[in-house]
């Protein structure tokens, strides 16, 4: 019961944050709204017993990525951006998207939640072998190669970023 309450609370937080992110005029406000939305998602992770993801969400997205965002926002010329018309012009397309999504939701509701059964929710981690431990066992054993290769991927991305950004190397 309590979990359900928390679920709806976090879900509301996520949605409200997302809506505010696209509707606020000031870029800084947008960023802060996005933080609250991401925090809501983090809460949802916690409800799913995904403690590691919860931590990652807080540290990486709310901590790292958002700080980066705020830096960018401070660097670009905000006044000019605020004066410009915002992306409200595409309200027809937005309505179409909304109608489509609504139809999908309606379809799933009428066909019953059964038709959309996902895998059973993850079991609570066994005591002594916590969520993070299980994850690290997987990550550094079975998924060791993808994990290492992800570093290669990041290297390529960094090289690319530097290449594209710098005028002369």
């Amino acid at each position, binding site marked *: 019961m309590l979990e359900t309450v928390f679920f709806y609370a976090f879900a509301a937080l996520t949605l409200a944050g997302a809506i505010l992110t696209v509707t606020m005029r000031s870029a800084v406000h947008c960023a802060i709204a996005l933080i609250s939305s991401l925090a809501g998602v983090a809460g949802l992770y916690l409800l799913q017993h995904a403690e590691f993801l919860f931590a990652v969400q807080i540290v990486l997205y709310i901590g790292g990525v958002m700080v980066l965002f705020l830096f960018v926002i401070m660097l670009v010329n905000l006044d000019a951006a605020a004066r410009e018309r915002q992306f409200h012009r595409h309200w027809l397309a937005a309505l179409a998207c909304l109608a489509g999504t609504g139809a999908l939701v309606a379809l799933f509701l009428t066909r019953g939640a059964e*038709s*959309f*059964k*996902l*895998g059973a929710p993850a079991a609570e981690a066994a005591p002594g072998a916590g969520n993070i431990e299980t994850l690290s*066992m997987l990550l*550094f*054993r*079975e*998924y*060791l*190669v*993808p994990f290492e*290769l*992800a570093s*290669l*991927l990041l*290297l*390529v*991305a960094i*090289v*690319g970023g530097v*290449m*594209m950004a710098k*005028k002369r*190397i």
Partner: protein
Amino acid sequence: MPVNFMPTPQELFRFAPEMLLTLVATIIMVLEPLSGADGKRKFAVISFLSLAAAIALSVAAAGDPGAAFSSMIVVDGFSTFFRILVMVAGVLTILISTNYLRMEEHESGEYYALVLFSIVGQCIMVSANELIMLFIGLECSSIASYVLAGFLRDDKRNNESALKYFLLGSFATAFLLYGVAWIYGTTGYTNLSEIRRVLLDPNSNQNMVVISAATALMFVGFAFKVSAAPFQMWAPDVYQGAPAPVTAFMSVGPKAAAFAMFLRVLMTAFEPVKDRWEPLLWTSALATMVIGNFAALRQTNIKRLLAYSSIAHAGYIMVALTAHSDIGTAAAMFYLASYTFMNIGAFAVVTYIARKGERHVEIQDLAGLSQRRPVVAAMLTIFLLSLTGIPLTAGFFGKFYIFKAALDANMVWLAVLGMLNSAVAAYYYLRLIVVMYMQAPSDEMEELPAPSVGIQAAMFAAAAATVFLGVFPSVVLDYAGKSASFIR
């Protein structure tokens, strides 16, 4: 729980080509700032040699086939075939690139490093037996290609091309990743063989709606990467804007790798639910052929024309995929091999014709080429005839095997429409030949310097391979036929 982090030497050996290339690419990046402005040529030589060594390693690794790293990658005939194919494409690309980069005053180690990184990504794509590996390989290859597409940073068209490619490409990979997540959610696995096992298991009672939706999401990602309809719009702009050697590379290497993973995912994991995706592929194949060929009819820019032609060729290969049989797989493999040679060959000539700043990429710039540079014209003619599908060239046997596979799978209409499409294609390839051979060069044309050694080598090698595969296709086809069954 036994803890064993250390991979066995056997596993390392199976992964050796990728490791070698990564190492060399990193070394190039380290050496780059230490070398003077005119010392950049050595990077081309280094990457050339490392690719040759990696090809040798792949051949050696094929002698001991099997899975590695808890079935993350698998070295079999199929992956060896495509590993070698993308590396050969890389070798040819490097041959074309050196002179171009020097001409554009952009020769630097990063270019070669990125080409190598991209090839590493493609090698991972073709040998991955696991959706996450596959995704990482794809991203690695794609991000390197995005950067390569915009390599001449001061060039507007390059920037546009890179940005378009990056935005649309990221969007498409997001779809792919979403599909992967769904599959993991329903089946509980990301390993292709395990997914197949679950789907075949009569007791598992999978929700077909979710499976189909996931397949469709992954299809979006794959279709984008192979430029199949309806996700082909990016190709003409990106191909036209990117530097010509990069276009040559993008149109074969990443494409071949993407088709390889497409084939592996379809044939290994989703073969049990083929009824679901077969109509989807059928429609997409036909639409791709039609869009590619009919749009190519109206182009005046050679690069753009070849871009649409590469869309059409993706359509032919999709026909082979639709057949989903061993013959179809082998046909697609053979087609990709021949396509690699003829397309890189054609782009080698385009790179040569374009000259500094790519000012000469209109069809009219080919006028009278047969008189100005008869050998180059003859080479381009071979490539174009092969792209048309005239006998004694590789392209003919490629088409032949594909349509044979389609007929084997009882898709008579797809085969008939595909063949008619290839007759339409003859028109725009012929137009290039017409301009080269039947129009006199105009007087104000600048002098055409002799092609550089690299371009000559690439041209001759590609032409030789095109004709060789056109006369003795069995060499490659037998190998493809044998390795096609591995991905079942």
